[in-house]
C-alpha cells in the first residue's frame, strides 16, 4: 500500500433516522476519500448532514440510525461492524475533536486522567507511563507547564486550552484520520487561528488525514486541499478550495460565499440566502435547493440533479452548470436577482 492509496473511503453513505413523524433522511449518498496528510473540508449549514456523516464514520450514531453504503478504513469495511469491533477503530485509527470544548471534557476528572484514559484504551501502559504520555501530549498541543497542568480539572482551563486538550486526547493513539467537527466554532477568533494551525501541523507530524467539518468557509479557506459543500444531506459541490471559492458552479455554494464577510473594509451588506433548508422528512422531488435558488426552473423542481463534472475533480450537482459557466461573474448571482 502506498501513501497515495485512500486511507478512508466513504461511498454512497446514507443515514436515516426513523421518527414518529417519518423517516429523516439526514445523509443521502455521500462519497469522499482521504489520503494521508489530506485535509478535506466539509462545509454546510446546520442540519445539512455534515456532523451525521462524521458520527457515522465514528460509529457513534444512535442505535436507531439506519446506515447504508460503505465506509472503508484501508481494507476494512466499517458499516455493519458490531459496536465492540468498532471500538478498535474509534480513538485509535479514527479520532474526533468535537465542537464545544466546554462540555466535551468530563468535569469531574482531571485533564491528565482523561488523556491517560484515552491512551490506555488502546495501549497497554502502566498508569505512570500513561501519565508521562499525557504530559508529552499536552506539550505537543502547546499547553505551557504541561507537568503541572496535567493535574488540572477542565474548569481550570480556558476554552482554547480545553480544545487543545481535546485535540491531545484525539491524537493520543496516533490516529490515521482525525475528524474535527467545528473545532473552532466555540472559540475566540484569535484562538481559532492558533488551533487550526496546530491541527495542520499535527497532520504532518502524525501523517494523518484531517476531515474538517464547518459551516464557516473562512475556516477552510486557507487550509483544505479539497472541499465538499453539503446541502440537505447531499454533497452538492466538490472541488479544490480554489474551484469552490473562485469558480463555484452550484448556486448554494455561491450563496454561502455571498454570506461570508469577504472584502476587508468594504461597506457591502452581506447577502443571506433567503428561505430555509427543506425538512429532511419530506424532501422535494427535485433539487433540494430549488425553493431558494434564483436559477430554479421546472426541471429543478422535478428532477434531482446528477453530479456534473465541471472540470477535473470539480463536480457540481446542478442542472444549470452550463448557464453558470456562461455567466461573467457567477458570484453575483444572488445580487442580480435581488436588484
Amino acid at each position: 500500500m502506498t501513501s497515495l492509496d485512500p486511507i478512508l473511503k466513504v461511498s454512497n453513505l446514507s443515514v436515516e433516522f426513523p421518527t414518529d413523524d417519518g423517516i429523516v433522511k439526514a445523509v443521502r449518498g455521500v462519497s469522499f476519500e482521504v489520503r494521508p496528510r489530506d485535509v478535506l473540508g466539509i462545509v454546510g449549514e446546520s442540519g445539512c448532514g455534515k456532523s451525521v456523516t462524521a458520527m457515522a464514520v465514528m460509529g457513534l450514531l444512535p442505535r436507531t440510525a439506519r446506515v447504508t453504503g460503505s465506509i472503508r478504513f484501508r481494507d476494512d469495511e466499517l458499516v455493519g461492524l458490531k459496536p465492540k469491533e468498532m471500538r478498535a477503530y474509534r480513538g485509535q485509527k479514527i479520532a474526533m475533536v468535537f465542537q464545544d470544548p466546554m462540555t466535551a471534557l468530563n468535569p469531574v476528572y482531571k485533564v491528565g486522567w482523561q488523556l491517560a484514559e484515552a491512551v490506555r484504551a488502546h495501549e497497554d501502559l502502566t498508569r505512570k507511563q500513561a501519565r508521562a504520555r499525557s504530559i508529552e501530549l499536552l506539550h505537543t498541543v502547546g499547553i505551557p507547564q504541561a507537568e503541572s497542568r496535567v493535574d488540572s480539572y477542565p474548569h481550570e482551563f480556558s476554552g482554547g486550552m480545553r480544545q487543545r486538550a481535546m485535540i491531545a486526547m484525539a491524537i493520543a493513539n496516533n490516529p490515521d484520520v482525525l475528524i474535527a467537527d467545528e473545532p473552532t466554532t466555540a472559540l475566540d477568533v484569535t484562538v481559532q487561528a492558533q488551533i487550526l494551525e496546530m491541527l495542520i501541523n499535527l497532520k504532518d507530524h502524525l501523517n494523518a488525514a484531517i476531515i474538517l467539518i464547518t459551516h464557516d468557509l473562512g475556516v477552510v479557506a486557507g487550509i483544505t486541499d479539497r472541499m465538499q459543500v453539503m446541502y440537505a444531506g447531499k454533497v452538492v459541490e466538490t472541488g479544490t478550495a480554489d474551484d469552490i471559492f473562485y469558480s463555484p458552479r452550484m448556486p448554494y455554494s455561491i450563496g454561502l460565499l455571498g454570506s461570508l464577510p469577504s472584502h476587508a473594509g468594504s461597506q457591502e451588506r452581506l447577502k443571506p440566502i433567503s428561505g430555509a433548508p427543506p425538512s429532511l422528512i419530506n424532501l422535494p422531488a427535485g433539487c433540494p435547493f430549488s425553493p431558494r435558488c434564483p436559477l430554479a426552473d421546472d426541471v429543478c423542481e422535478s428532477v434531482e440533479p446528477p453530479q456534473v463534472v465541471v472540470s477535473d475533480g470539480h463536480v457540481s450537482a446542478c442542472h444549470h452548470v452550463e448557464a453558470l459557466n456562461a455567466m461573467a461573474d457567477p458570484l453575483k448571482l444572488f445580487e442580480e436577482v435581488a436588484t
Partner: protein
Amino acid sequence: MISFIIRRVLVSIPLLFLASIVAFILVVNTGDPIEDLRTKPNVPKATIALREHELGLDKPVVERYVSWLGKAVHGDFGKTIKNQPVWAQVRRSLGVTLRLVLFAEIVSVLIGVMIGVVSAVKQYSWFDYGATTGAFLLYSLPVLAVGSFLKFILAIRLNRWIGRGDDPLIKTIGEGTANFCTASKPYNCGFIPSVTDFLSHAFLPMLTLVLITFAGYARFSRAAMLETLNADYVRTARAKGLSERRVIMKHAFRTALMTVATVISLDFGALIGGAILTETIFEWHGMGRVLVESINKIDPNLLLCWFFVTAVAVIAFNLIADIIYAVLDPRIRLD
C-alpha cells in the same frame, strides 16, 4: 474543607437556637398537658396548682423557654408527663428508628439506583416501560395502603396458611419480641437468634419503606442518568473507544452520582424523624411513635426533644449533602 465544616457547624448553632424557639412556640400551643386533671370532677384546686407548678406551667412562656433551654444545652431534656427521663426514651426510639430506616434506605437506594440506571441505559425498552409503570404505581400509593396490605392481606394470611398463626414467621407487630433474651431464656441471647428475631420483625416495615421509597430513587436516577448519557463528555468517552460499560459507569454514572447522592443524604436526614405511618402500622416504638404519642398525650418535654433531634439530623445531613457534593464535584470548592 475543614474550615468549611467548622464554619457550617458554627452556623448551625444559631440555626438550632431559632428552631428551638419555633418548636417551643408550637409545643406550647399543642394543648394543656394537665387538661385531664382539670376536667376531672372533685380535684382540689391545690392539687392542680401543685401539678402546674411541677410542670412549670405557672410561669410565663419566656421563662419556661429559658429554663428548658438552659437544661437542654447541658443535655438534660427533662422528664415526660409520666415522670420518666425524656432523653432515655428518645434515645431508645432513635435506635429503633435507625435500625429500620438505615436498612430500608440502603436497600431502597441500591434497588432504586440500579433500576434507574438500567432504565436510562435501555431507554424505551420493555424494562424501562415496566420499571417506569411500576415505579409510578408504587410512588403514588399511600404508605398506609401498602403497609396495611402487606400486614393484613399478605403476612397474616401467609402465617396462618403455613400453620404459624400463633407463632408467626413474619412478625407483624413490634420491633422485637418482648423479653426475648432473659436469664430464663439464655439460648435466645446469641447473635444468630437476635438477628433472626430482628429480621422477622423488620421484614414487613422495611419492605413497606423500600416499596414506597425505591421508586422515587429509580425515577430520579433515571432522569439524572439520561441527562449525563446525552452529555458531550459521554460522547467524547465513546469516541475514545472505551468499552460501553466504562462509558456508562465511569463517565455517565459518576457524574449522575453527584445529584443522586445529594438527594439521598437530604432524604436520610428527614427520615431520622421517624417513619411515622410505617411505625404506627407495625407498632414500632421509634421516633415516629414518639411524635404521635407526645402530641396525643400533650407531653411538652418529649415533643421538644423530638423536635430537637430531628432538627439536628436535618441540619447535619444538609451539611453532609454539601460535603458529598464537594467531594464528588471538583468544581465546587468549600472554603
